[in-house]
């Protein structure tokens, strides 16, 4: 009797909080999705239900091309920055007391994007490289990495040292300790960091604008340039499709993975 009541009392306010937060996050998204079925060309004029914008979207090669470019950049930069960021976080945690170096590792996250964008453009000019998707990708890695580093470092705090000593006392090498003990114990943080990196890269505009090649615009660049004529529901249609695809992917992944691997 007692424990059940206790759990309930513990759970209910948390549910209310979750519900509230998700309402805040999703009400604008639902408004945005509803607008994608608006027959008019402006989000501010209502004109009956229509799939018009979905068909426009399907035939808009610029948007589709931009989406592919964006997915390439986001995936590539997420993988690279997760690896580099995790290594760096562990390295900093184990060996570096200096506030300066710790701040330096996180500095890419604090530089205003426009300054980093223009600076990178100057650097690429100095190195005489021609711009393309890879120059955006590298630029995205540098700031994503700072986010991954910070999230992973936040989790490392105490247990790392003992786990590692225990493992090495049992005769494991440094490498296998790192791969078998450290990385799994950090998995939730690495996942959170990777999600952050992916999310940030997917929507990054300013740095991408300056560092991309003229024939490889990413989706945000395509969208930002479209607002010269106001936002059309075409982008809402795209957003709706992306949400549906990612939501389905999440559900499938959920069904397929066993709910136990977490530590």
């Amino acid at each position, binding site marked *: 009797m007692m424990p059940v009541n206790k759990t309930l009392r513990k759970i209910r306010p948390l549910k209310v909080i979750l519900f509230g937060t998700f309402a805040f996050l999703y009400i*604008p998204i639902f408004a945005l999705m509803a607008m994608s079925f608006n027959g008019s060309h402006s989000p501010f004029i209502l004109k009956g239900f229509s799939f018009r914008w979905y068909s426009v979207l399907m035939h808009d090669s610029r948007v589709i091309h931009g989406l592919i470019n964006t997915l390439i950049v986001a995936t590539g930069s997420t993988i690279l920055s997760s690896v580099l960021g995790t290594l760096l976080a562990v390295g900093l945690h*184990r060996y570096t*007391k200096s506030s300066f170096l710790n701040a330096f590792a996180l500095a890419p*996250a604090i530089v205003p994007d426009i*300054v980093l964008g223009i600076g990178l453009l100057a650097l690429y000019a100095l190195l005489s490289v021609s711009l393309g998707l890879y120059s955006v990708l590298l*630029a995205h890695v540098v700031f994503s990495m700072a986010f991954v580093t910070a999230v992973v470092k936040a989790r490392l705090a105490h247990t790392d040292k003992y786990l590692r000593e225990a493992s090495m006392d049992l005769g494991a090498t440094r490498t296998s300790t790192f791969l078998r003990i450290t990385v799994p114990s950090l998995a939730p943080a690495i996942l959170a960091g990777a999600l*952050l990196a992916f999310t940030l890269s997917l929507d990054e505009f300013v740095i991408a604008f300056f560092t991309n090649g003229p024939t490889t615009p990413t989706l945000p660049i395509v969208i930002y340039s479209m607002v010269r004529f106001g936002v059309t529901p075409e982008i809402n249609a795209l957003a709706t499709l992306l949400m549906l695809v990612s939501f389905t992917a999440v559900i499938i992944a959920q069904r397929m993975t066993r709910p*136990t691997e977490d530590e």
Partner: protein
Amino acid sequence: MTSPIRTRVSRDSEKRRDLLERMVLQGPGFLFITIFMATPITLVAIYSIFQRGRFGGIVYKATTENFTRALDPVYLGVLTDSLKIAGITTVLAIAIGYPTAYAIAKLPTKWRSIALVLVVMPFWTNFLIRTYSWIMLLNREGLLNHALMKFNIIHTPLDLLYTQSAVVVGLLYGYLPLMILPLYASIERLDPQLGEAAANLGATKARAFFSLTLPLTASGLIAGSIFVFIPSLGNFIVPELLGGGKTVMVGNLIRDQFLKARDWPFGSVLALSVIALVFIFFMLQNAVEKRFSSDASE
């Protein structure tokens, strides 16, 4: 007991291996940051001591004028406003983000990753579109006003948009996941038995929270605060769209110098001062974090 010689040898080789490990772990990251951040920033910093050309561009004649110009009250005023707006946004993000992250961490394991993805999924749609959807909700002819008027709660539409509060809401909406994710990562590793132990020892919930939970999650809290505060400070799209261009933040200022005035030297000075300010914050934060973690482990 091992012999002194053997200890020294193994300590030396241990040291060498430590150094190697440190190089492997930190080397790639720092190399990357040096090439792709430090060098570009240095290039920009160099502009700050030169002059703007008549039609934009740089004239390579040294001057300190750019630095004295930055002290003009109009720029200091914008800086104060920005710090205020970014500060309020961060506090609100903690108020919403902390309980949310906590609630997610308390979910059954299989729901946690779903909840996490649900937190970031709205952000896989375009930032501009998301911001526009707030305009649709809040404007004078918008959904919220229509709903309130339909239910006779109000009779004339409210002016909810184009204010500093609208800017705060937009920034909060934009950056809340950046608070929730690091908080989740640090709350999730808390041992639930710690709380029970504290309760058994007679600690009140509040006491247990402030003396145990908070210090143990401080690093996530600080990381989240930085992630929300910094981009809020530098954002120039939300003040333009939801603030109706009537609120100016330091991000707008820097953007305007680089793009509108084509005054790269002065833009560099403004950017450098923001970077310096935030960098100092960062080093302070690091010192605080060290204090916190040493307190907690005692």
